[in-house]
């Protein structure tokens, strides 16, 4: 990661560094992997589908919100890749969905106070709905027939609430471990 950071401001921004706090993208990827594994192997046995939170999505949105669109995109693509390993959906579907959500989180958060609970809560609601909508579109584009029924809508509502609560609960921790993104811009600017 070191040489990349030295060469490119974007790399510096994406991968993180000691100046930006102990939380680096490696920890985010580790968290996403653990989250995908736990959700698909354990939680579905114990909980109804609607009560299983999407940890990989939450981490993607938080990372995008705190770091910007490029880190959000990278975290999203990684989450999409991990999801596709355990999903029957075509490979591109989770990649497109998570990547787009991570980048959007970064773009949107750039216009607001990133650490604000209202912003994080609103973004998580929007991101969960966006992820479901993009999944439908991407699956249809890949030739998968879909059934959007009452159960699907209930699941969407329940997961949105659950994801938002968990994102809000995790925000202080992420904020403490990965300080405000304002630190990043001057460095990027200085390189440019």
């Amino acid at each position, binding site marked *: 990661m070191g040489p990349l950071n030295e060469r490119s401001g974007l790399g510096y921004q994406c991968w993180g560094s000691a100046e930006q706090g102990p939380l680096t993208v490696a920890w985010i990827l580790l968290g996403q992997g653990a989250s995908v594994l736990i959700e698909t192997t354990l939680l579905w046995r114990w909980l109804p589908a609607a009560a299983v939170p999407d940890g990989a999505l939450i981490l993607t949105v938080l990372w995008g919100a705190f770091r910007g669109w490029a880190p959000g995109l990278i975290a999203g693509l990684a989450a999409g890749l991990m999801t596709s390993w355990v999903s*029957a959906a075509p490979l591109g579907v989770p990649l497109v969905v998570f990547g787009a959500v991570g980048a959007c989180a970064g773009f949107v958060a750039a216009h607001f106070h990133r650490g604000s609970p209202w912003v994080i809560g609103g973004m998580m609601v929007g991101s969960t709905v966006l992820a479901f909508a993009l999944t439908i579109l991407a699956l249809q584009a890949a030739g998968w027939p879909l059934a959007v029924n009452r159960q*699907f809508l209930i699941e*969407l509502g329940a997961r949105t609430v659950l994801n938002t609560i968990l994102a809000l609960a995790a925000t202080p921790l992420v904020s403490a471990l990965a300080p405000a993104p304002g630190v990043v811009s001057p460095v990027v600017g200085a390189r440019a």
Partner: protein
Amino acid sequence: MAVVALAASAVLMVFPESRALLQGWGAQFFGPAQQAITRSTVGVGEAVGVVTRAGQLAAQNRNYREEIDRLRSLDVQVKRLETENEDLRQLLEMRRRSSIGNLVSAQVIARDPLALIQALVIDRGTNDGLVANMPVITYQGVAGRVIEVSPTTAKVLLVADVNSAVSVDVDGADSHTSGVVRGTGDGRLLLQYVPREDALHLGDPVTTSGIGGIFPPGLLVGTVDQVRSADVGVFQEALVQPAVRLKDMERIYVVLTRQ
């Protein structure tokens, strides 16, 4: 003083009555004292014994706990084996009824994380002879089909997924018809393309017809749950309750068909 004492002793030797009297007094004094000392000594001895055996008792207690844990674990294993045994017995019965080939037992290890897709991952792959489009069953009936295989795992599309379609026969008490069963996405199945003039009754068994080449004929898919017959149109539809409890599946069987 010594002389007096010696004289007294001599008197006691000469007069036995006075000796017995003195011994009686002594016994009356010493008896209760002896009893008290003996009793208290026994109590102290027991207490000392308990203290010295405490370590031994703790070890014994630990052994008992370990034994209980072991027996509980054994109980769980016995129940699991009983369930598996019942599964296999029912499968054997199913194999007698329909012409299914060799089976590979597999454990469900993960569920698809995307809400719109009804699929799961099993712990068998190409190393075990699995290839895409092999049917997946339980002793209750059809569960789905293999859609993607890696050397050690495989992805199974459940029969309840919207992308799943199975050609079926419906055999009532006095009727016979055929159609196609698709997933509805909410855990139930939709029976389609049944000619309107054919009779469908609640509870009619829906079995695979063998057309399509993926599922062998005669496997139970479900039972007719609700008939939807319109006044117009060539076909009628019915909702079908899956025979397999798809949510609770842990052990399934892949039919090794020739591809």
